[in-house]
């Protein structure tokens, strides 16, 4: 009897809700801790990064729970982007030199994220934000735009905080001694700082991972060097009205990393804020919030979506609130392991948190699950995917005006997406392969076959894919819609209309700002009623909701729960004298590490009432009815820790005489050729083959019912000796070759 299935992530526990539009808690609200702030400034020219030949500043701020007694706390480090570095205290004119000359003050860009630092510190994080002015002053002259130097600067600060955390040092003395968890660190970088934190995560890894970088967030980043980050949960934030990094090149971090490491278990997210610009995420870069250097980077006053006077543009307050909520969701999920916010990031709940001040037309999320949570139907990553999908199922379409794979190294113009798509590979290593489809009749459709080996979707939660309107081939202002069908092997069909599940198919607004961006659509499989989810044959897109249109899709997959295929269960066999042999039969994902805890329900046996063996033997106290439970913990490569429990009632009668072991055990086939199938054994029993001369010719532990025999074994008659529970069972076995 299954009694409980839960997901535990470290100390936090919450049930994942399968329902769309669930009441997800608001991650952006202030937490329970009072917050204090500190500053440290070791000087403007005190550290020379290994990749530079000049000295730079070491300066930063820290926000922390005033009550540090409950530490160590997880750590966040923020790295600002490129901005003016100094201002004239008489005229407020800003410049980009370093160090600041006489009559000038440094611009404190690192203080521009204090609003987020406050929120996170109030939830029990120590949040460090570091100054990067010196690198900004010289990086135009560096071939990598100073990215390696940024990585080294951030690492230097971590080294400094290691000192604060261990022996203490000025200016904090021992205030932070033992208060930071340096193995649970999240980093956030804005703009060039975004590429800087990606470089730092890789640099830290190259040094042997002295610090545990567990989550990386890039905010309106550049991606000049196209480094690909794997194995660390990642989120990119793309502001639609970015007038600085106007090509939204940060989407490449997400796109490039999807399939380049087939073992990558780290989730990737990308958040699109429709009315946000580049600068308002930082209060120091926001006009009116700081004495010098601030500006609205959006360049056109006539753009319908992004001009300052447009109702769809975010003001600076809204922009910060939006980022605060989604950044908090990310860090609290992957650093704090609070799984209750995952529906926001996994596109299960598309209603934005109230604290973000957004509505669901303002924000769109892309989500790429870790490897073991996906069954990729069609990655749209090669030209053959137009006819054969990733599962080797057949891809068909009828009547489409055009359907082809483009992008991701293939010709972008072939899908007529032209220059207005940030996902274009732009000379980078990977980019986004995509399926372009254009229709002008509502009978047209596109279909992916699910081969029989994959048709059982019992362990999957949703159908997910990314999609975008191709606004270059769609009537201006038209929001498109279509129907997704699941069809089982008996021909049962169930429909879900996109617009009932997502707002992601929208006509990209604006004139100079218009650009095609992919967003994830997540449809719970539970919505496809009437279809046998153990025999799903086709996933079909029927373009019957818009008379004509053009869409681009990618990353079509089924999504499992964070625990994947994980199901605790066991079997048992009764022995004499109230002894019971238990066999763990838990279904788990390959690569997971499992731990077992048994409670036999036999309280009179004292300490022996529990066991942590995989397949224990328990001698019960006497006849009776016992509720026995197996608690299995699965440590996933993705970082999730899952538990599942299986309980059953065992009735022991007095003077029970078990069936002799010899009668319980069967070996088939007999005669055998190259393998045996053995039942009635536990996976600690041992099989030995002895020939007619009494020689032991083969021995193995029966860890699986199927035993493959060595090719060297000659045909003949043997004794199969099975050692079980200290008893030997003999069976005659014939081997034919």
């Amino acid at each position: 009897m299954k009694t409980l299935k839960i997901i535990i992530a470290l100390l936090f526990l919450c049930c994942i809700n399968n329902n769309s539009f669930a009441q997800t808690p608001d991650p952006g609200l202030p937490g329970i801790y009072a917050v204090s702030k500190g500053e440290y400034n070791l000087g403007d020219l005190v550290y020379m990064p290994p990749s530079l030949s000049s000295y730079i500043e070491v300066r930063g701020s820290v926000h922390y729970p005033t009550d540090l007694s409950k530490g160590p706390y997880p750590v966040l480090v923020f790295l600002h982007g490129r901005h003016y570095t100094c201002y004239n205290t008489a005229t407020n004119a800003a410049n980009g030199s370093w160090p600041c000359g006489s009559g000038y003050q440094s611009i404190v860009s690192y203080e521009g994220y204090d609003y987020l630092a406050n929120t996170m510190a109030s939830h029990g994080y120590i949040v460090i934000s570091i100054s990067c002015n010196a690198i900004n002053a010289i990086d135009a002259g560096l071939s990598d735009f100073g990215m390696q130097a940024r990585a080294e600067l951030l690492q230097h600060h971590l080294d400094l905080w290691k000192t604060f955390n261990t022996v203490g040092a000025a200016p904090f003395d021992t205030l932070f001694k033992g208060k930071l968890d340096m193995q649970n660190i999240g980093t956030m970088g804005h703009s060039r700082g975004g590429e800087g934190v990606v470089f730092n995560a890789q640099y830290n890894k190259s040094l042997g991972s002295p610090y545990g970088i567990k989550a990386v967030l890039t905010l309106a980043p550049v991606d000049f060097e196209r480094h690909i980050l794997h194995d660390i949960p990642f989120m990119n934030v793309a502001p639609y009205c970015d007038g600085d990094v106007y090509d939204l090149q940060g989407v490449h971090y997400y796109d490039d990393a999807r399939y380049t490491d087939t073992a990558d278990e780290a989730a990737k997210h990308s958040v699109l804020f429709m009315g946000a610009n580049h600068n308002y995420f930082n209060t120091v870069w926001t006009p009116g919030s700081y004495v010098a250097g601030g500006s609205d980077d959006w360049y056109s006053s006539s753009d319908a979506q992004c001009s300052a006077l447009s109702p769809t543009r975010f003001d600076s307050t809204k922009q910060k609130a939006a980022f605060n909520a989604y950044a908090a969701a990310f860090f609290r999920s992957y650093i704090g392991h609070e799984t209750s916010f995952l529906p926001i990031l996994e596109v299960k709940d598309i209603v934005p948190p109230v604290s973000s001040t957004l509505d669901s037309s303002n924000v769109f999320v892309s989500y790429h699950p870790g490897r073991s949570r996906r069954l990729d139907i069609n990655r749209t990553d090669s030209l053959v995917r137009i006819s054969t999908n990733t599962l080797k199922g057949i891809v068909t379409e009828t009547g489409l005006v055009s359907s082809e794979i483009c992008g991701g190294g293939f010709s972008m113009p072939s899908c007529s997406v032209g220059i207005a798509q940030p996902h274009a590979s732009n000379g980078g290593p990977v980019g986004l392969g995509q399926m372009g489809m254009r229709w002008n009749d509502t009978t047209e459709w596109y279909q992916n076959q699910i081969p029989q080996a994959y048709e059982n979707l019992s362990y999957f939660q949703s159908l997910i894919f990314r999609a975008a309107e191709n606004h270059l081939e769609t009537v201006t202002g038209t929001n498109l819609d279509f129907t997704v069908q699941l069809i089982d092997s008996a021909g049962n069909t169930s429909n879900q209309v996109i617009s009932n599940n997502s707002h992601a198919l929208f006509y990209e607004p604006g004139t100079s700002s218009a650009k095609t961006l992919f967003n994830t659509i997540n449809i719970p499989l539970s919505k496809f009623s009437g279809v046998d989810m153990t025999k799903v044959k086709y996933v079909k897109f029927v373009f019957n909701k818009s008379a004509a249109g053009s869409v681009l899709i990618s990353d079509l997959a089924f999504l499992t729960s964070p625990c994947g295929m994980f199901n605790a269960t066991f079997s048992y066999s009764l022995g004499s004298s109230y002894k019971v042999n238990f066999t763990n039969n838990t279904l788990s994902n390959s690569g997971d590490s499992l731990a077992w805890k048994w409670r036999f329900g036999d309280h009179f046996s004292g300490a022996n009432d529990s066991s942590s063996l995989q397949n224990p033997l328990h001698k019960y106290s006497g006849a009776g009815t016992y509720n026995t439970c197996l608690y299995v913990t699965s440590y996933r490569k993705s970082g999730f820790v899952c538990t599942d429990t299986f309980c059953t009632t065992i009735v022991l009668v007095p003077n029970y005489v078990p069936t002799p072991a010899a009668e319980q055990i069967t070996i088939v086939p007999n005669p055998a050729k190259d393998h045996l199938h053995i039942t009635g054994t536990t996976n600690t029993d041992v099989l030995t083959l002895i020939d007619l001369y009494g020689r032991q010719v083969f021995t193995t532990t029966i860890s699986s019912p199927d035993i493959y025999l060595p090719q060297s074994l000659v045909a003949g008659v043997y004794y199969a000796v099975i050692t079980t529970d200290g008893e030997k069972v003999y069976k005659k076995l014939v081997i034919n070759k």
Partner: protein
Amino acid sequence: MKHLILTCTLLSVFCFPTQSEAQQKPVVEIISVKRVGNTVEFGLISATPFYMGNNAYVLYIGNKRFHISEQSTSEDQKGHLKFFIPLHTFNKLKEGQAIYLSYGFVSENEAMDMEQGSKDDMNRQWSLGKFSKKLLTQ
């Protein structure tokens, strides 16, 4: 009809000055091309300071692109950009190729639109004429 046109004209002149202002694109010119050792410094000047932002200023000469640069603001509040081109690369550049300044790298597709980009009001691309080795003044 005449009144309507007049009203619109007055509105555009007096009521939306920020709009007109925002659409003015600063002129960028080549101010000097000089050799310093094994490098050629390609100096540009703008009527207003170049934006101190996060995208990269890139100098395109034909299909070659250069981004190693130095950005500064002078006391006259004009913008100054210097691009550093290795001498051997400079010597291989072909006469008559178009020179563009771009804020941000452009893809091959976009490169075809550089001329158009230099004409629109977005501060992204500027046409700087044709390349000639005679630009080298020192």
